[in-house]
């Protein structure tokens, strides 16, 4: 994949940073011990080690454009918009995401999914399902693309709509808060990412996400989720799901740019976020949410 190199480079830089943090943590700890008279001198030796100086110099050199020379994450503030009134439930986004990001190909691991809300005549609450529902999987048939079945064809439907879901790349992400090793982090540009080489696979983040956006890859022993196709957006491209959306339901862009699709969506509509009471401050902005959407 073209963008994989970028991601790898970025993860490498993140690792550099982490190595520095680790060293700093050890230095601080040893300094504290030295202060207690347990290991006098050790701290200062470590603190001034040539390796650390070289590390700092390297970080400073890269800081001109971080994390790569072609992409400076301090210059962007990414956000995502979803206009549910436009979604037709075609599920191209789900398919594109699975292919683009090599997501486990079953009905239990999704970086993005689409929910269907159907209010039948005379009912107060919506019937909700997603394409991962066994009935819908059966309707799609073996090896077929995802689809919604036609289960309401004999019912009187009052109103119905689709709601695409994904990681909300929250401003105060609970998943990042709970990670015991800091393997998942919020980048300067607002994307919440996971360093798969650092994740210990405790699944605390999976628990903490109120949106069910995270999952565990059993084969790799790590957590995973949507990255807004980081390998694409850092090259000026749209996330795959936005790229394939035929109705313009999904938009993406830079909040620093008032002309970006997401900035316009926010400017032209009254937007909502999912579960605002969670305090996570999501960065996926919705148009046309309904009372039963959670």
């Amino acid at each position, binding site marked *: 994949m073209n963008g994989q190199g970028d991601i790898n480079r970025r993860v490498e830089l993140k690792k550099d940073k*982490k190595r520095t*943090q*680790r060293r700093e*943590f*050890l230095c601080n700890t040893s300094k504290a011990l030295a202060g207690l008279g347990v290991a006098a001198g050790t701290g200062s030796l470590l603190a001034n080690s040539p390796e650390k100086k070289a590390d700092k110099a390297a970080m400073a050199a890269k800081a001109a454009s971080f994390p790569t020379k072609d992409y400076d994450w301090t210059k962007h503030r990414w956000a995502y918009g979803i206009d549910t009134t436009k979604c037709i439930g075609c599920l191209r986004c789900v398919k594109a995401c699975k292919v683009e990001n090599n997501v486990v190909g079953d*009905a*239990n*691991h*999704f970086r993005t*999914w689409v*929910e269907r809300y159907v209010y039948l005549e005379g009912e107060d609450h919506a019937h*909700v*399902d*997603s394409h*991962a529902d066994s009935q819908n999987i059966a309707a799609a048939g073996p090896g077929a693309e995802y689809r919604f079945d036609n289960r309401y064809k004999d019912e009187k439907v009052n109103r119905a709509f689709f709601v695409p*879901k994904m990681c909300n790349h929250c401003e105060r992400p*609970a998943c*990042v*808060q*709970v*990670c*015991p*090793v*800091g*393997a998942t982090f919020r980048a300067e540009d607002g994307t919440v990412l996971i360093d798969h080489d*650092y*994740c*210990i*696979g*405790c*699944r*605390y983040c*999976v*628990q*903490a*996400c*109120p*949106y*069910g*956006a*995270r*999952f*565990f890859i*059993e084969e*790799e*022993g*790590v*957590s995973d989720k949507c990255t807004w196709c980081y390998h694409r957006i850092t090259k000026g491209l749209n996330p795959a799901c936005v790229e394939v959306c035929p109705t313009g339901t999904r938009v993406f862009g830079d909040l620093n740019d008032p002309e970006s699709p997401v900035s316009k969506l926010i400017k032209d509509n009254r937007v909502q976020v999912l579960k605002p009471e*969670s*305090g996570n401050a999501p960065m996926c902005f919705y148009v046309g949410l309904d009372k039963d959407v*959670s």
Partner: protein
Amino acid sequence: MTEVATFTGYVYPNETIIPWGVLIVIYPYLTGLVAGAFTVSSFYHVFGMQQFKPVARLALLTSLSVMLFVPMPLLIHLGHPERSYLSMITPHLTSAFAMFGFFAAFYTILLMLECWFVFRPGNVERARNSSGLKRTFYRAITLWSDDLSPRARLIDSKWLLTLAIIGIPSAHGLHGYIGFVYGSLKARHWWESDLMPIIFLFSAIVSGIALVMVLYVLTSRIRRTAIDHSCLKGLMMALWGFLMFTVVLEGLEFANIVYKGKEGVDMIIAYVQGPLFWRYFILQFGIGALVPVFLMGIMVAINLKGRAFVIGSTISSLLVLMNVLFMRWNVVIGGQEISKTGKGLLTYPMPLFGHESIVSASIVLIAPFILLAILLKLFPPWVEQSGDT
């Protein structure tokens, strides 16, 4: 092969793989036993309650044996156990779990130190009364310190008191902290509660007391020695008191969830009335808590003694041990069976074999007691064994 959870209603697609399985039920259960057993040992070692002397050292060894296995379920559970050390090298301090490694390591060292001081005089004597390899072993265990002079014994007892005083808040802090790991998780209604750490703590104390009671009766039977009535009665009274408090706390927490009736409460009510009914109301609250509370109450009221008292106490203890195991299950698994959508319920599929299964959980649960049996052989904690503090 990961088991996929079946569900009713609507759940997020990713929720169909339950992230924390049976090993994460065993993990707080073991931690609780550690804290509770340590509490029993402290009755004598800190508070100087002489009636608990017969079980004080047994409780301490129990605490150590279980503590050494506390990290085991976590390590088996991790996707990358070989990276677990990262949580101690680069702890992410905003995580409620970042400090576990430090706390657990600190507490394990503290327990080992306390055991070393408690069993030092006995080990010195055992070294003196043996020869060859056995003698070398006990001498090594005492770190070649064979001074049993009154002055040395005084230093021992000062160290012991200090360690035990640090140990009580540490043991309880460790377990309250585990409760916080769940209680602070706002994404799950079933967990998100300020009472959770306190409930975890008190259920830990009752489970530890119950375990020591069962072990005391069992080892006395095996050794064909008389059971100290005063000691067993003291333990039962402590169990009775703490259990009543725990039941009230658990009841209050449930009442809070229902009474506040926040969004998603309908699903919680449907859950406790349906799939959770037996596990929660019947096994945890009814048979596991109310039955022993009444049973112990009756035993106290009629001042039961002798064999009937021993049987009654043992049954109560076993029921309490079951109660706490169900409490852990109902919290850990229960929380994940209620969908974050507030519109669906999942059923945790527990496999018989595999990474996180009935077999692996049973091994982790039994392993500390095999270690305890070995430790009891090597360092007999019984009162009639002379020497130890």
